């Protein structure tokens, strides 16, 4: 498997697995967080417009 001899070796990363994988996990979470942030932005705009519409401001 690529540079490593086995999948277990790949996960262990020569005893540095915990460091490497936690960094990549945090990065993936950050990306997910930003995706969620975009969804929230979208909700904010749509909610605001619907509120304006309900009140008859549009």
């Amino acid at each position, binding site marked *: 498997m690529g*540079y490593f001899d086995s999948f277990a070796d790949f996960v262990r990363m020569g005893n540095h697995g915990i*460091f*490497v994988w936690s*960094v990549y996990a945090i*990065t993936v979470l950050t990306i997910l967080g*930003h995706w969620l942030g*975009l969804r929230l*932005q979208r909700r*904010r705009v749509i909610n605001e417009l619907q509120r304006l519409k309900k009140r008859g401001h*549009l």
Partner: protein
Amino acid sequence: MALSLTPVWRWFHRWTSPPNFYRISRPWAHGLMAVGGTALFVAWIWGLVFAPEDYLQGNSYRIIFVHVPSASASLALYLTMAITAVISLVWKIKLADMVIRQCIPVGLTLTALALISGAIWGRPTWGVYWIWDARLTSMLLQLFLFIGMWAIHTAIDQQKLADRATAILVLVGFVNLPIIKWSVDWWNTMHQPATIRITGETTMVWEMLAPLLLSMAATYCVVAALVLYRTRWEILYRERKTRWVQDELGIRGKA
């Protein structure tokens, strides 16, 4: 000056008008995200699975494919923000304010990511999570500056005031950052002549350098796409009372 530049000026104004930018930025955002996302995926697989081990640091060096791109992208983003702040303050372009506002959360997370990944990398390499080295300290202060921008923008209710105050802070912080970097460097060499350097960076072999460069290019694309997406929603929010936004979202009143 303004007179002789009239055609350019008019073009610039039209190009940065919110509806126009919203329209033309759409393919850019999608394209950059698609290219950047794919490239990032490839770079990570390459870096994690196929790149060889570092003879000094072992496998922990693989953190570099997150650490260096996020740090470099955060600096590039700050530079972009400073240029945009000048545009905002000098020419009062609405779009510039929206871009700055939406750069803040992205820059904040990039800086935090660079710091966190650096700290985790520091543990196996240096034996400690944190040292008060020039680069780390100035990065931490960049994080503080981003927090300050976010805080002042949320604290001021009035949109225009908040935008201006943030732009001024971006510029003041931008002047300050090199001074910090320089002063911390000076301060550190004073107490600690031999600073710990990240080895391998200068003597990097091609098999490691290639995925690193790819991950950097990919991160730049993803960050640019993210800022574009965020700016597009900011445009819709701020222009929500206009016809074109209501048409765009399909939410319309009766009359």
